[in-house]
């Protein structure tokens, strides 16, 4: 199971868009094998960089409005938000070093 907090269509505004933190939203679903594979890696990155980035999860099955708003067509899709704006998108399950490289500007 993932350690990441779940956000929903209803809480997205408060938890993500209005937040003053750098927040990465992991768009995922139960039926997505690569999502399950990448989840523990995201937990590790979140734990190791807790002061830099927060990682939350949005289940696309249960929260179609946000999945549609952000034009998700492939999961896992990880979008980094700052000040209510998407500043980075990473798509697909990747090994930890590759994800850290993709997210380097937010982890340093």
């Amino acid at each position, binding site marked *: 199971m993932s350690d990441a907090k779940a956000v929903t269509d209803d809480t997205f505004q408060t938890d993500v868009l209005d937040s003053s933190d750098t927040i990465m939203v992991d768009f995922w*679903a139960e*039926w*997505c*094998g*690569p*999502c399950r*594979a*990448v989840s*523990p*890696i995201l937990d590790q990155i979140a734990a190791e960089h807790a002061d830099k980035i927060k990682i939350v999860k949005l289940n*696309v*099955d249960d929260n179609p409005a946000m*999945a549609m708003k952000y*034009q*998700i*067509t*492939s*999961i896992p*899709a990880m979008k980094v938000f700052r000040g209510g704006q998407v500043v980075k998108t990473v*798509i*697909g*399950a*990747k*090994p*930890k*070093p590759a994800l850290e490289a993709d997210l380097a500007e937010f982890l340093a």
Partner: protein
Amino acid sequence: MSELREVIIVGSGPAGYTAAIYAARANLRPLVIASSVEAGGELMKTTEVENYPGFPEGIQGPELMIKMQEQAERFGAEIVLDDVVSLDLAGDVKSVTLGNGDVHEALTVIFATGSAYRKLGIADEDRLSGYGVSWCATCDGFFFRQKTIAVVGGGDSAMEEATFLTKFADKVYLIHRGSSLRASKVMQERAQADPKIEFIFNHTVEHIYGDELVTGIGIVDTTSGAETTLDVSGLFIAIGADPRTHLVHGQLDLTTFGTIAVDGRSSRTNLPGVFAAGDVIDPTYRQAVTAAGSGTVAALDAEHYLAALPRELKDRVEVPAERADVSVGA
């Protein structure tokens, strides 16, 4: 540096896990480097597997792989969820370096890394990957509800993807460059009977259109050269796979097919103590069950090789104290 082992298995599809089951039951305590995000291999991205013997009602691909993993672990295989970044296979002692920096050493290595999805190799394919271009219907089909999409390919995986995608999409074009399909009869008939699937033969996909998301593709008639635009919001690519050999280039001999060369019906590569199994040696059949059989061959070959090694080498393998308690068989 960890202790010297007898067997390291690289890969965790049917070949890797079956090799692990056999090696573990031979008390070789294999270490399986299963990958960080692709553990379980290709079958983790499939749905119903209907041709694996022993499951008359079919079994979900991910469930089958989890069962194989559990079976290997039951007999003492150790599984590491990390990726191999480099291998040194030449000497008596082989070393395997992982993404986290750990280095593992063993007297034998079984290489079962399978294959990687083939790309079309056309402009905008990478740019729109994840934005309408996909290699995984089970992952991404959900996002194409009531859309029109295209699948390119003519084999079983193209048929399976097209059929699966009709659960979501209103219409699925199945584009194939040839005039007949490679897919098995049962998969072809299922796709052809589906009213949502329209077959387009003798066409190749040459263009993918779209700024942020895919909006269409350009397909070219292989006989007349005429190009047609199809308005689709997704393109699923299922044109086969290439053996994943980049880690061993320069160390292991390859065949003209790009697979790792093995000696006859065995799993023996050009390097003593290095064995290869599954799709990475198979240009022809590439089924879950042939990969599993190939994994068995590799484990038995490794076992025979180890048995014939000089005692001074074998004595360097550290046997953990608890190993005497491992009960195998029954």
